[in-house]
């Protein structure tokens, strides 16, 4: 309260006795905003030498408070149907191992969104899409790097290990593993299974539907699609059933 009164008094004095101060203040705000939008403008422009020079400074100013990512469907819209599938390999208390079928994560979310104008599934769907895009992008980048480095390109075992380690540092991969706990929790609860140990592997299925020139082909006939996939190794997942503090 005292602090507020103090500020009020100072502002009052400024307001009453220094009319030009107000004008100056106004121009000060305008100047700050011009600089602010100038930075945002530079940040969002195509890569150019000035942007390159101040790259880190620009990022540190813009993120996280003024993030600008207005690239939905740009430069090109997504033109492939991405599906996320998961399967679990689990061990029971008596030592027996079992493997589940591939569980389609994407299909129920799409169905829910289609049936409801407002749906929480939209957020989960957005989450899985972001994870898959991230894994797809990193997958390409890592493979590019492997082909560029001779020692990796010539040694399959080394390349495989490099790929696995690099992928494990990505947000997309880690988030998918984290999300798999959520799926595992529902799967095992629904089927009344209490596993001792659970491993998960995921598959990202990229299905390219008929291109514009073939728009009259049957959209729902999968024979008209082109497929490619990324399948992960098995990863151990812990803390499926809310063990806080572990």
């Amino acid at each position, binding site marked *: 309260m005292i602090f507020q009164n103090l500020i009020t008094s100072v502002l009052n004095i400024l307001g009453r006795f220094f009319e030009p101060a107000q004008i100056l203040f106004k121009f000060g705000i305008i100047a700050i905003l011009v600089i602010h939008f100038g930075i945002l403008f530079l940040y969002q422009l195509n890569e150019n030498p000035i942007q390159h020079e101040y790259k880190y400074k620009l990022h540190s100013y813009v993120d996280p408070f003024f993030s600008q990512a207005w690239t*939905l469907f740009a430069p090109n819209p997504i033109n492939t149907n991405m599906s996320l599938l998961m399967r679990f390999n689990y061990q029971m208390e008596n030592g027996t191992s079992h493997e589940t079928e591939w569980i389609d994560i994407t299909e129920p979310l799409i169905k829910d969104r289609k049936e409801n104008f407002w749906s929480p599934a939209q957020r989960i769907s957005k989450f899985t899409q972001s994870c898959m895009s991230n894994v797809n992008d990193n997958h390409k980048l890592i493979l590019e790097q492997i082909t560029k480095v001779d020692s990796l390109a010539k040694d399959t075992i080394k390349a495989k290990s490099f790929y696995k380690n690099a992928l494990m540092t990505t947000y997309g991969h880690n988030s998918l593993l984290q999300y798999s706990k959520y799926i595992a929790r529902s799967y095992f609860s629904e089927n009344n299974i209490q596993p001792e140990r659970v491993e998960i592997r995921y598959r990202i299925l990229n299905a390219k539907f008929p291109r514009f020139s073939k728009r009259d082909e049957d959209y729902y006939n999968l024979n008209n699609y082109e497929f490619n996939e990324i399948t992960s190794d098995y990863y151990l997942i812990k803390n499926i059933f809310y063990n806080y503090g572990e």
Partner: protein
Amino acid sequence: MENKYSIGLTMTRILICFIIIKNMCFYLPLAEDYFGLNGIFPYENYIEQMNFYGLKFLTYPFHIPHFPFIFILTVIILATLYMLAIGGRFVGVVLYFAIIILKIRNGFILDGSDNVIQVVLPFLVLADNLDHFRYFKKKTNIISNFISRYSVIFTFAIMIQVCFVYIFTGLAKHEGELWRNGTAVYYTMRVRDFMATDWNITLTKNHYFVVILTYFTLFWELAFPFLVWFKKTKFWIFIGGIFLHVGIWVFMRIDNFSWVMLSTYFVFITNDEFFSFQNKKLKVFIDGWCPVCRNFGNRIKKVDFLNLIMLEDIRDSKVPSIEFRNKGLLSMASIDDNGKSSFGFDSILKIAIRIPVFWLVLPILFILKLTKIGNYFYNELAIKRTIIPIHCNENCKIKTF
């Protein structure tokens, strides 16, 4: 200095808060899964990012059981308070930081709409958006008055930010092969995640539909930042925007982004432009013996910022004819300035046209009118309404103006 954009700013505040509340209500049952220790985005990444951004002091303990739920509930309360202008700018600032924390905790579930809210909110808080739709009367506060002197500057900052959204998305699209060759809409409407209706396939088989909509989207986005500043072109560009965003919502189920962008259009409309509707008053006749109708009338008056709706009790007031009264007792009657009478769902539509909060749902109301579904539902409700003539006294009268 009086802010000539105060009504538009108020509208944007209400709608943005409404969208935040809606989002949080969706998060609430899944709060632990979205944001908790074992949430779908790794908790350690959140801690890492908070430290990276130098925001360690803002780190919220999402790892403690039930704390994610409490956080979401707090955001709902903050958004409700801000929507009703309780707590003023202070609540707005706290709400802004809460949204930033949520974004860092799990950015993967957020979309473009959250990003727009995040970049618009700081300027909205500084601009005078708290003049209307207040729960309590406005108190004079020297700090607030001091900030208000510069409100117009912050209002323009919101406008520039909205223009940035469109110009940069337009420029990015312009670089895409599919946008340039006019086929992008084919892919956006057919990709399974955004294919909301079976109509998408049929519509995109038509190459005229695909090419025209692709180029319309591209040119409209690039034109927005230039044409929105002129009175003559502003409303045309808004009509294009409503068409585009409602289309995106219906056919691609991208809801939040569409509504948030549309809500920011109100900022561009001056109070004078809102008041140019003044000569479009509507006299609405409500059945004073029906509690639901009275409640409806009183609620309508609360959001009638432009003061265009005049409520009257059809049982007490002077009406053009006995037929009018009889028909008005069956379904809500209204008379516009030209003396044209409307009944039932048509009256609802005329009310919605005069109340900016309802403008976002106008396309839906028009569809309901064209398909006559609106009239059907109205009649169903009107027939089943309760009428209490005996208990009615002066206290249950609707407000008349």
